């Protein structure tokens, strides 16, 4: 039998699907009977989904272009300066 503390300790690996079958079975036994861990697991999983799917911190096209231009300008200047 595992408790909430152990469940929480393995939660990261469990969410990422990186636990061995035997451990997963034990985690799921705990999950089936612990409402609190169900909620924590479910909301952590959703948090990760939001993180991976929301497309956060994307760089808008004009800003991306000006960054590329800025970098290349400096590199070309340094290159011609050096030789």
């Amino acid at each position, binding site marked *: 039998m595992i408790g909430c503390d152990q469940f929480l300790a393995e939660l*990261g690996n469990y969410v990422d699907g990186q636990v061995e079958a035997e451990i997963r079975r034990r985690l799921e036994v705990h999950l089936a009977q612990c409402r609190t861990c169900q909620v924590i697991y479910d909301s952590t999983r959703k948090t990760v989904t939001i993180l*991976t799917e*929301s497309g*956060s911190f994307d760089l808008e096209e004009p800003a991306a272009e000006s*960054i590329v231009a800025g970098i*290349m300008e400096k590199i070309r200047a340094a290159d011609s300066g050096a030789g």
Partner: protein
Amino acid sequence: MDAILIQEGALTRQQKEYIFLVCSGANLSTYCVTAHCEIVRMLGIQGPEPEQVAVNHASTALPESDKALLDFALKLNNHPAQVARQDMEALRAQGFGDPQILEAVLVVGLAKFANFVAFGLGTAPDFDPSKVVLSQRSFLGQEANLLAREDRPTDSAPGSGTGEDADAEVVARVKAGDLNAFEELVRRHSRRIYRTLVGILGEREEAKDAVQDAFLKAFQHLGEFQGRAKFSTWLVRIASNTGIERLRERKRLESLEEISLEPEAGFRPAQTQAWNDDPERVYSRAEVRKLMEKELMQLPAPYRTVVVLRDIEQLSTEDAAAALGLGIPALKSRLLRGRLMLREALSPYFARSAKRRTA
């Protein structure tokens, strides 16, 4: 002391502390072993028990490359006159470059110095170890490292090794002097590098500036990139270092105290209300993204950084750990903690009983 051991250099603080421990163990310096075992714990370095490292590093689960580094340190410590070119070659074969080897040599020298002084003065470990490190504890702990660490092998990570680097051909053109090819690399990776830096710095404008820094550094150091890691991983590592350096600079201007006192253990989830099955039923996709970005920016940098690299950048555990110079267990525990903190912050919005609120 500060320059050789405390500062992150080509080697991580963790590697330096282990070298120090191995030498102090071999020199039977109880004082130095005791003090540095405590320091390793206070720094929150994840890994084998420091005593085990001091007594017999070969029996630990450290990566082979680190063991080779410690073998070298021990040989230099015990038989300095026997160190030869082959020993350097062995280190290079493990992916260490000259800056790292030099630092290892310096740390061995420093350990000997400290051990001998402790013996000469007859010191016994009678101090409160916490006082030793409190003033020196850097806020990002062991995670920064320098550019030169590209070649730490990540072969143990399936899919992250060599042989499938989509950038290899373009990198080769840049090395041959084709500047336009570098522009291609910038275009391919600028968005990812930007996200990495926003994640680390928590600020968009500064991140844009730092993206330029990171690419310029990558360009200047491209000669050191030998393709043992993927180019994108190497680049993210440079970006991480760039971001962490800026963060350190910023913290130097503010107070160091506040950050180092941040509790490392004992985080417990407090919000236990079930969430809506589909958060997008209540909030639009754009609103969800905004909420998430806002809350992610509030996380302490060590957690924010790991969450961004793993969940937004979707680097593998191994690549993210390599990019930050962290061990896998440390990376995993920060990731879980960061996700749980974020979950906590988002719960008031997404809980079934929650009323719709704006970001």
